[in-house]
């Protein structure tokens, strides 16, 4: 019966350990986000533990997603209506996963974190929305449909496009001798050939001079000197100045395009980091398994420690009882022996004492005689 009591103590101890472990499991589930408390809750305790852990399991919150990385907020300039449209389309869209976004209307700042349960390809989001929009609009009550209606029209209806401007042309129009556009020469080429414009120029010049439409005076001399100097300067330093200006331009362009390349590079690295984060998210399950294992081990250790403690305590108490009993028996035995001895000693009268002493002496004599005879 004591073994039965011990067994009952162990089972209740185990049940209490399972209770405490399942409560800890609920705590761990809340912190770690694992809903698998029922798994090792049933493994550690008996049948009593599993029912309690199973009750604790659904009470734990469902899998919460880790906070989305900041890059997912980058396409935020999108107007909030597609988000709400997506949710409304999701409400009317058939298939599972709808209950997750069906918790009221999500706020418009809900970022573009992909929800694979909801739509297969997040890139097709807008197309799917546009296809589902009429069905969704019909499904909505009329006032809400009116509110949503005017957001489905395209916003930019002007000719203004967001494409970058076309680049500047490389070289300007051709100019011959710095004064006359090339188009003039091309205009006269079919009729007069290559020398036509020069003949025209010479003829005009002679006409102006001879008719004195162009008068040769002091200003002509001054113009001649000035133009000589200017043309000499241009011929000598023109190349250098042009190269210098081109270098300035190229430096500006290089700075700007370096900036552009840097930002492109930064965005590329950000994309890679994002992909890496997404890959890491897939490893969540392993992380939680490891955590669960750790917790299970801790709980097992704790349980065994307590078991040991219980065993020691019980052993101590039982040893005490055993020691008490042996002591009592010992005391009784001693007491009994003493009492018997006392009574026997008392019962020996003096007469008996003398007779016994005489008998002893006779016996001793007989013994000594036999010894002498033997020798």
């Amino acid at each position: 019966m004591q073994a039965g009591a011990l067994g009952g103590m162990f089972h209740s101890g185990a049940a209490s350990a399972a209770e405490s472990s399942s409560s800890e499991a609920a705590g761990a589930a809340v912190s770690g986000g694992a809903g698998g408390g029922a798994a090792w809750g049933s493994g550690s305790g008996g049948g009593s533990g599993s029912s309690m852990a199973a009750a604790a399991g659904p009470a734990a919150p469902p899998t919460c997603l880790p906070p989305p990385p900041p890059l997912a907020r980058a396409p935020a300039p999108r107007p909030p209506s597609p988000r709400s449209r997506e949710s409304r389309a999701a409400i009317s869209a058939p298939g599972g996963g709808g209950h997750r976004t069906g918790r009221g209307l999500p706020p418009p700042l809900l970022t573009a974190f992909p929800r694979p349960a909801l739509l297969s390809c997040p890139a097709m989001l807008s197309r799917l929305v546009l296809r589902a929009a009429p069905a969704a609009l019909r499904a909505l009550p009329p006032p809400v449909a009116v509110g949503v209606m005017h957001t489905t029209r395209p916003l930019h209806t002007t000719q203004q496009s967001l494409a970058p401007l076309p680049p500047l042309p490389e070289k300007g129009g051709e100019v011959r001798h710095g004064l006359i556009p090339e188009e003039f020469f091309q205009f006269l080429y079919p009729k007069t050939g290559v020398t036509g414009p020069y003949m025209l120029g010479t003829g005009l010049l002679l006409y102006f001079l001879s008719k004195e439409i162009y008068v040769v005076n002091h200003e002509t001399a001054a113009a001649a000197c000035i133009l000589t100097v200017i043309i000499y300067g241009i011929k000598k330093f023109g190349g250098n100045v042009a190269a210098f200006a081109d270098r300035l331009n190229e430096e500006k362009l290089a700075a700007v395009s370096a900036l552009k390349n840097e930002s492109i590079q930064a965005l590329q690295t950000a994309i890679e980091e994002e992909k890496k984060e997404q890959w890491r998210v897939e490893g969540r399950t392993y992380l939680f398994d490891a955590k669960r294992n750790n917790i299970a081990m801790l709980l097992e250790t704790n349980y065994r420690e307590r078991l040991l403690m219980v065993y020691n305590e019980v052993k101590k108490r039982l040893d005490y009882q055993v020691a008490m009993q042996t002591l009592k028996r010992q005391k009784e035995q001693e007491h009994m022996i003493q009492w018997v001895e006392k009574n026997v000693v008392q019962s020996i009268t003096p007469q008996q004492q003398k007779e016994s002493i005489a008998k002893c002496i006779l016996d001793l004599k007989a013994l000594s005689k036999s010894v002498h005879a033997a020798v």
Partner: protein
Amino acid sequence: MSPRCRSLPGTSRWRSHRVMLLKDTKLMDVKLGQLGTWLAMRDFTPRGILGAIRRGYDRYYNKYINVRKGGLGGISMVLAGYAVLSYVWSYSHIKHDRRRKYH
């Protein structure tokens, strides 16, 4: 464009571009006989004149100056035109420096 709108008589979307209005022709495409009519049709209001100046400036600017590697011809043509214009305006004064009276 033209054969298609001939074959579809019911289409009202296609304007008849077969006949080019004189108003829309450019100066180089105007025939010599039509020059007077063409000039008369131009817009000579202040707004029209300003618009024409604006257009001419834009054309010259975008052709010779607003380029990556501009050359000397861009400004030298402007300066030469300025010189010629100033000579023309001061011809009545320069006339007196002529060496011969009869040409």
